[in-house]
């Protein structure tokens, strides 16, 4: 019961925050809503017993990504004229709704093979095993830093002065 309550509370706040991101006029407030949404998602991870992932979610999304976004908002504050919509607003809305209907239909009508096993706890050693252990995802783990490095260098090159 408690888990249900938690889910409903977290989910509704998350959806509201997400709506705020796309609807609020003030960009800064939109960014704050985004942070709120991220936090709620972290909470949802906890209800899914992914505690490690929840911490990482906060660390990466709240601690780094949103801060970067806010920084960018700050740096471009001279041209911030709120958060207006373009002329595709209506088609975009329909596409979104149709898309939602499509995948929603798919999700509800797929016979998922739900396992009744209780979830693994704690997850941290298991994830470490999966990431670094034998037969795990060691290659992607090694490629990921490469990607990050490329991103960092790319970002530096892009914003470098002259």
């Amino acid at each position: 019961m408690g888990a249900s309550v938690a889910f409903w509370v977290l989910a509704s706040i998350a959806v509201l925050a997400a709506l705020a991101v796309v609807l609020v006029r003030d960009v800064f407030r939109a960014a704050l809503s985004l942070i709120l949404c991220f936090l709620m998602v972290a909470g949802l991870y906890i209800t899914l017993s992914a505690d490690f992932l929840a911490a990482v979610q906060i660390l990466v999304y709240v601690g780094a990504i949103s801060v970067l976004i806010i920084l960018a908002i700050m740096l471009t504050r001279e041209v911030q004229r709120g958060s207006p919509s373009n002329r595709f607003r209506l088609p975009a809305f329909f596409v979104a709704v149709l898309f939602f209907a499509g995948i929603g239909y798919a999700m509800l009508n797929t016979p998922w093979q739900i396992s009744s096993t209780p979830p693994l706890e704690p997850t941290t050693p298991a994830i470490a095993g999966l990431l670094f252990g034998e037969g795990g995802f060691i290659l992607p783990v090694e490629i990921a830093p490469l990607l990050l490095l490329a991103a960092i260098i790319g970002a530096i090159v892009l914003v470098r002065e002259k």
Partner: protein
Amino acid sequence: MAMQMLPPDWPGNFWAHWAIFAVAILVFVLLMVMVFIWFERRALAVMQARLGPNRAGPFGLFQSAADALKLLIKEDIVPAKGDKLVHWLAPVVAFVPVVLIFAVVPFWGGAILADLNIGILYIVAISSVTAVGIFMAGWSSNNKYSTLGAMRQVASVVSYEIPVVLSVVGVVLLAGSLSMQQIVAAQDIPFILLQPLGFLLFFCGALAEINRAPFDLTEADSEIVAGFFTEYSGMKFGLLFLAEYGEALAISAIVTTLFLGGWRGPLLPPFLWFLLKVGLVFFVIVWIRATVPRLRIDQLMALAWKFLFPLALLNLLITAAEILFWPAVSLWVFVPINFAVMIILVLLWSKFFKLGWGKVEV
């Protein structure tokens, strides 16, 4: 995160435990913050050949309380062009994570609100939220000094998080667990001896993350008046102030837990040991504040990226190698080795490392 602490269904006896502990910790943190504010002012004053607050109560102990009272009844001002809602929310957002950190700080053997198996990761994650609060404060004040302060804060937090986390990983490797309680349990030798370099880096990085001298650029009073504080008054200012000192207290507690053996110690009761060690670390912070000048923003960045970051990586590498290759050797063997490594690395880097003498080219 706290799933394994939760019973199958939430309501129940467990709530009592949580509520009592949560309230106790809240009270403790607020009390300690006030005491520490007083402590800092006194220590700083004595080091500066002054006396410091000594009027309100015995030895001026109630000075912080008096200040808090004064702040409570002060007028609350919001800048006319500012963002009222954000301005109001900012102190809360800045303060709440600070209190949350204490949930996983082990005060005693059993005295911990939640012994998470990802305790230290939790701390790192939660503490990064404070930056958002500070940024909100800076933005909503719509003041140039505040904006500058907030930008400095963000820049320093984002860059200092990396060496801090990396130096913590060394400790985690040694303890073999992310749980704070287990880290304390693993410290038959205080990790400051096993991880001298890690301690140094963590301490440096932590000082920068909580904006204490010499990295207090965010509120550098001689440059940008009070940074993101500038437009705050009344209890909102009080909350931000509390958050600042709460962070300092938290960092002291974390350093104590990670490197100084936490509540462990002979003779005295564990709780006292914990307080003693926290006080000691806090005193060192104050001591440093009393002595050194402030860095410039680009030097701060250079310090993080050119000095702390590579050293943290090397420290991690060396620690990992030691654990991997000599798992059976007594840890005492590593004490001199690691000290030697620290000295060599710091000397090497000091030699190679330059942070803009002249004009800044970032």
